[in-house]
């Protein structure tokens, strides 16, 4: 089984694609067979981040059944060990992928033979984004230290959590009545994390415990991107604290990445940032974040 790591953030421009591309590069350099998956269906651009302006095949060849298996749309990148499923050339309606197509793709992704699969998710909280997040029990939220970005990250965090809880509660006896006899399934459909949490209290203790354990097993990380010198370096840890205290689940802080104009320059020249500036401060931050993320995941596995 590959280790699947979805990377998302509420708002555009927070660095999802940047982080996906460069984490992939680091992992590939360490000798891990790594696949980058552009799951931002309506706004695919991961190929550009790693310096490929044109790709022969893309995800939609699989979705529209031009090819039989997902493996056939995987393309090699100029970097050894690094592979890509591109979204370049997705048709314009790609963002509105149907449920069947989505489930088929999700199942196929989990079967692919790679060490690591990094999913670059789109902004926003549509079910298409959330369900890619749900593909594994882990994920990275990335945000910039700005209210707009943080607001959307909270929204995303809560959506992911609520969806996971819905799944878990549905996995229990869906007909089990709670309180006034309304069926659990109906109540679970569209509630906030707080309401779902309160529902957990209504379950029998064994079920409650099983659910709590499943929720605790989730491994989410937070990365703060584009940190300027005057920004509070403690912002990330504090956000994690607030999430744990008020939303009741754990997100681990994985590090700050400083603002660096050279990132902009590398992207404009369509060169992988880590290749072009391997020793800049942002590159050092990236390496540290990578280390933190995968150290945490090994601890979680062991």
């Amino acid at each position, binding site marked *: 089984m590959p280790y699947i790591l979805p990377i998302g953030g509420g708002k555009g421009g927070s660095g999802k694609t940047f982080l996906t591309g460069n984490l992939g590069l680091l992992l590939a350099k360490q000798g891990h067979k790594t696949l980058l998956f552009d799951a931002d269906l309506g706004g695919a651009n991961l190929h550009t981040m790693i310096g490929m302006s044109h790709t022969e095949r893309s995800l939609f060849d699989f979705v529209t059944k031009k090819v039989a298996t997902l493996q056939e749309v995987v393309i090699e990148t100029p970097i050894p060990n690094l592979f890509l499923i591109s979204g370049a050339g997705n048709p314009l309606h790609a963002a509105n992928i149907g449920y069947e197509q989505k489930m088929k793709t999700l199942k196929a992704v989990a079967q692919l033979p790679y060490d690591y699969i990094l999913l670059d998710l789109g902004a926003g909280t549509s079910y298409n984004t959330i369900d890619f997040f749900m593909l594994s029990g882990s994920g990275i939220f990335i945000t910039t*230290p*700005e*209210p707009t970005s*943080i*607001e959307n990250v*909270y*929204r995303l965090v809560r959506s992911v959590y609520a969806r996971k809880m819905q799944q878990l509660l549905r996995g229990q006896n869906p007909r089990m009545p709670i309180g*006034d006899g*309304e069926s659990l399934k109906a109540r679970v459909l569209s509630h906030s994390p*707080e*309401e779902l*949490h*309160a529902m957990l209290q209504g379950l029998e203790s064994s079920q409650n415990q099983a659910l709590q354990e499943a929720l605790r097993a989730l491994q989410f990380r937070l990365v703060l991107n584009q940190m300027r010198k005057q920004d*509070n370096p403690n*912002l990330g840890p*504090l*956000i994690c*604290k*607030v999430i744990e*205290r*008020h*939303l*009741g689940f754990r997100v681990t802080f994985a590090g700050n990445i400083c603002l660096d104009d050279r990132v902009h320059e590398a992207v404009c020249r369509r060169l992988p940032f880590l290749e072009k500036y391997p020793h800049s401060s942002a590159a050092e931050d990236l390496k540290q974040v990578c280390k933190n993320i995968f150290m945490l995941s090994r601890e979680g596995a062991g």
Partner: protein
Amino acid sequence: MKRDREGSPEHRRISGPSILDDFRRQNHYEVLNLPVDASPYDVRRAYQEALEIYHEDSLVSYSLFTPWERKEIRARLDEAFSTLIHEERRAQYDRLLGARGKPAAGLPPEGVDPPSVPTLDLEPSGASSKVRGILQEELQARAQASGTVQSLMAQEVITGADLRKVREELHLSLEQIAQQTKIRVQFLRALEADRDALFPSRYHLRSFLKAYLRAMQLDAEALAARYLKRWQQKL
């Protein structure tokens, strides 16, 4: 007209579970995320951090709370802080918690509480070497002039009550000694109340005792031996 028993969505939003539910159930210590034996310095630091997270313009919790939720949080934080930072009010509150059967890990203060100190003047430990320097010379003078100290040296066995008497004569609070020795107030209080059971080992008791005596500029070796003699007899 027959209405859904659940009520309208608005109704549910108001009466339903809130993001603050846990917060509302918590006591002052939990609200500020503090252990029950937190020092005034810890209390202030925890309050500062809470403000950093919850104040209206905070980036950390931006959009997570509504303005009225924020107001409620702020009120609870302020209440917790003003209670815990004030020694008398805190002792009262501790007794209240104890009566409710929710004391945290067995150390509500026993007996009479020491006089309250102006805690806002306290500095974080380690930052007051100058103050401490002055204090030490003054203390030495006071200790030498003190009749109680002289009579203690004449006693064969001394008790916690004796120590407390000396400390009060030197106008030192437990807080001040705690800051200098970095020993928690609960242990100092236990020394003065002869509550030996609180100490993890005999070694701890002796070294805490000596630090306490040294902080008061007393002859630590001689007095510790006298104090521990009583302790040995009791065993």
